[in-house]
């Protein structure tokens, strides 16, 4: 019985809301990898992903009292906070990019081409670059579906969309990714 409680996220989050730090720690362990992967594929570097993951968990820790169990899974709550954190991150980046664009006009782009990356065996970099070329919605759906292994129903709840809309976006995103991988000569 006690073991079941330790595995049940809903029970854990209720305990965490009552100030049980052990339950908190257990939740962190459960969701640490999915949240990190979700963040990693949506930002530029591993360091930034680590910083943002830390920020996400800090926010969850500070706002756990606001969690309301209205047919929403704890993981959806964690993902919502991660998603908002990433939106904030990119908003800040865009503000800074005005200055960076001025500089980039003078400095030639030294990023390796996809073919060079394939030759070096850096498929991961191509995947990240290709994902970034998708629309924000497509990126999220691909990451949630194939990186975080969420069901279409869960993704639909998380993004406030219908399952049909999720399926459509997923197919379009996969088609676009396939084309990018093909252009990079991955297959």
């Amino acid at each position, binding site marked *: 019985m006690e073991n079941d409680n330790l595995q049940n996220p809903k029970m854990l989050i209720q305990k965490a809301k009552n100030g049980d730090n052990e339950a908190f*720690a257990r939740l962190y362990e459960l969701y640490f990898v999915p949240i990190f992967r979700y963040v990693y594929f949506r930002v530029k570097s591993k360091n930034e992903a680590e910083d943002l993951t830390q*920020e996400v968990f800090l926010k969850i820790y500070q706002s756990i009292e606001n969690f309301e169990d209205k047919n929403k899974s704890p993981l959806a709550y964690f993902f919502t906070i991660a998603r908002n954190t990433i939106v*904030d991150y990119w908003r800040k980046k865009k503000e800074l990019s005005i200055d960076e664009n001025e500089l980039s006009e003078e400095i030639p782009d030294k990023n390796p081409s996809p073919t060079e990356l394939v030759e070096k065996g850096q498929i991961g970099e191509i995947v990240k670059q290709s994902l970034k070329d998708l629309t924000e919605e497509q990126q999220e759906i691909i990451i949630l579906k194939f*990186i975080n292994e969420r069901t279409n129903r869960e993704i639909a709840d998380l993004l406030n969309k219908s399952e049909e809309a999720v399926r459509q976006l997923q197919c379009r995103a996969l088609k676009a*990714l*396939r084309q990018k991988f093909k252009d990079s000569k991955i*297959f």
Partner: protein
Amino acid sequence: MSNNSENLEKIINEALNLKEKGKTISEILNLYPEYKNELKEIFQTIDILNEEKEKVLPSKELLVKILSGLTPSKNVTEKEFSRYLYRSKKEPDFSGYKGRGSIIQLLERTSLMTMKKIYLGIGVLVLALIVIGAYYLTAVTPNSNQQTANQASSSQSPASSLSAAQEAQLLAEATSNPDTIVNNLLDNSQVSSTPVESDPSLTSSSSSDVLDSLNQAVDINNL
């Protein structure tokens, strides 16, 4: 969007559904021979995503770092009590935080600064009250001192007047200067002229004593 592209999206959707239902890739490819290559590439794309996903693992240090950030719950006996009544807990340390952490830090500090300002204001008010009180006391004290002095002189005992007369007499004997003696005695008698209502007998006796002293002084002078 062309019909071919729409059809491909539809086929991809169906193929994914079949995959979720447990069909193998080769079974699915056989179901759609005209889209075989496209579907094969779609499944390869999904495989690459899965492979890359497995490679992405956060460092364990990060988990430890986050978990160590959780403050362990303490028993009441282990709790550190602040000696400041207005500060119920220690100031949190946000030095390790980035991004929004700095905003939280700023808000926290601003709140503390506001509290400090309130207490500073109260301090200034108390100080101002002390200064006003001191001013009031210094302004009132001279009058009250005067009153006290008057009261003291009015309540001066006849015995002291008498001793003054005796002193004057002794002085007269020593100096033989009647004017000085008379002046001194008159001064003393003026100071003690206020009657003491509480004991009139004492007042009358002191007056007669002064007069006797005066007479004696005049007699000495005549001699």
